[in-house]
């Protein structure tokens, strides 16, 4: 059974899905913080530009096409459960969220006033 806090989050995310076309919101501060984590924890394998390491590309048309059918929550799930490769799940929840914001920014999404929240992941996508 879900705890009350979770059902609230569920309601919020359902509400957000009604406003479908809206691009995922995140702030510049989140993306900047994500960039720092990325540089320290991910760049060695995925490349400084997100698409120039040996590991799969995290930016560009190929990446967007690959993830087009999935929610940001799916992306966040894979990231938190498999990365960084030798210590999956070892970063703080806020750091993983900031990484999503950074990946969004590097894929051409614009930061705004509203921060990316865990609850918004389910309805957000990489679709433009």
């Amino acid at each position, binding site marked *: 059974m879900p705890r009350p806090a979770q059902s609230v989050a569920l309601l919020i995310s359902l509400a957000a899905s009604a406003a479908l076309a809206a691009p995922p919101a995140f702030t510049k501060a989140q993306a900047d913080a994500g960039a720092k984590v990325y540089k320290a924890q991910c760049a*060695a*394998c*995925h490349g400084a530009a997100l698409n120039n*390491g*040996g*590991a*799969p590309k995290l930016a560009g048309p190929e990446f967007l096409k*690959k993830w087009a*059918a*999935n929610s940001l929550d*799916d992306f966040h*799930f*894979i990231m938190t*459960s*498999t990365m960084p*490769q*030798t*210590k*999956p*799940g*070892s970063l703080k929840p806020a750091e993983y969220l900031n990484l999503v914001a950074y990946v969004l920014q590097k894929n051409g999404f614009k930061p705004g006033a509203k921060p990316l929240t865990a609850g918004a992941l389910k309805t957000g996508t990489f679709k433009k």
Partner: protein
Amino acid sequence: MKQHLCAASLLLSALLSPALAVSGPSQEELNTADQATDSWLMYNKGYMGQRYSPLDQVNADNVSGLRRVCTFDTKDDGGFQATPQMYKGVLFFTQMYRTFAIDAATCKPLWVHKYKPAGTSVLTTNRGVAIADGVIYRGTPDAHLIALDAGTGKPLWDTKVADSSVGYFLSAAPVVYNGRVYIGEAGADWGIKAHMYAFDAKTGKKAWTFDLIPTGSQYGANTWQKADSTATGGGSTWTSYTIDAATGLLYVSVGNPAPDFAAQYRPGDNLFTNSVVALNAETGAYDHHYQQIRNDDKDYDTAAAPVLYDVNGQKRMAVATKAGWLFSYNETAKNQVFKQATIKVTNQEKPTTRAGLNICPNYSAGTQWSGPSFDQLNNTLVVPTVDWCGVVKLGEVRLIKGQLFFGGSMQLDPAGKAIGNAVAFDAATGQERWRYSTPGVRIVGGVTTTGGNLTLGGAMDGTFFALDSRSGKVLFKDNIDGALIGGGVSTYTVGGQQYFAVIAGNTSKGAVSGKNVTGRVAIYTLR
């Protein structure tokens, strides 16, 4: 299955020297490959998979005089796990999308073929080729099987084997036997349902399919108590295959079930995962199997190909696993003779939990893609194996197309804590004879033994080593430009002179952070 002749991709194979016509090896040559001294025809040398050469020109007394004669640089830092395969003075090997032919004594490039993938790929690792009747066969990262002219690298046929977008790929070096090419899929960790196949060597047409994850009325289907879970049941064939030419049986090592860590999602023994299954090579019919781990929840594949050998007049099959065990089976009585730990093994019997379970080894340790070498001279099985622990955790089971399907996670201890080993075990009893250990440096590449009392291998700091097969004592060492060794060593003669060819480079593209030295083949001989 789709087939087409690839006239267009002809342009992609660059002939770097005058074309040479290659017509062999014949079935007769393939049958004697295990004992041959002027060739190294298969990934594990011959059908029995022994990785042993009777050559003794270079031996324990003179190996210190070994010198590197040349180095061929592939100019790519991607995964490089092949063993150089040699026929008529030419080395053949693969790296991701490219297939190379170079002179086995001088490194002079002869041709290179670059495969243009038709689909995406979740992993680009490739372990090598099969050679027969003038044709090179290999699998591709987008799950095609292709045939190339061995003399020129020109494509002959291309067969799509599976849908790579859901995680299927072909990383194994195929084996050719009696006009058929044998290969199976890898990709269990991405939630595939693997198969073993035979294809017609001339046309690329599929001859038979064996479901490594049985369903319906197939033998073993009752080991999947939830029928639904078979759709993503896993069961990769990662490396290569072994054949008993006397009985016509094909031996296949089958990897872990999926989701890797969430065993309760797939109750039952989960055949034929973590098993060696023996099939009738002609028909693909099930013959027998041995399962090393039931209902695995730690990603402990049986990955390396098995080795067939005779000891005290008894026919044996041995296999080493990622869980860090060496098994030997009596192939006449069809029973297990010994099960011997090759490294520290901890908490393997305990279930994976949400809180996390400390285990040894982790899923990147034990015996990975390179299995035992059977040293005919000393009656030992020499096994590359890594001591390295970690924490395994149960998590959410969520299938996302083309992504890892783990149902949990595995954290690895710092890489500096890993200990590489090459260990010799008595092939009859499993008793340890000697151990060569390299603390902080893994040994995952293929080990080779010779009639000169030499055990050759490589470590992940670029060290190529030769040990005395009687004691494990180091007799020779050379660092191959700091290129991590994940591939194997082969040995053969050219013009009566014994050479060694070593593959050095990365183990897996993206698996090691930082800048890697590009993949290279280094050739050695006595000078």
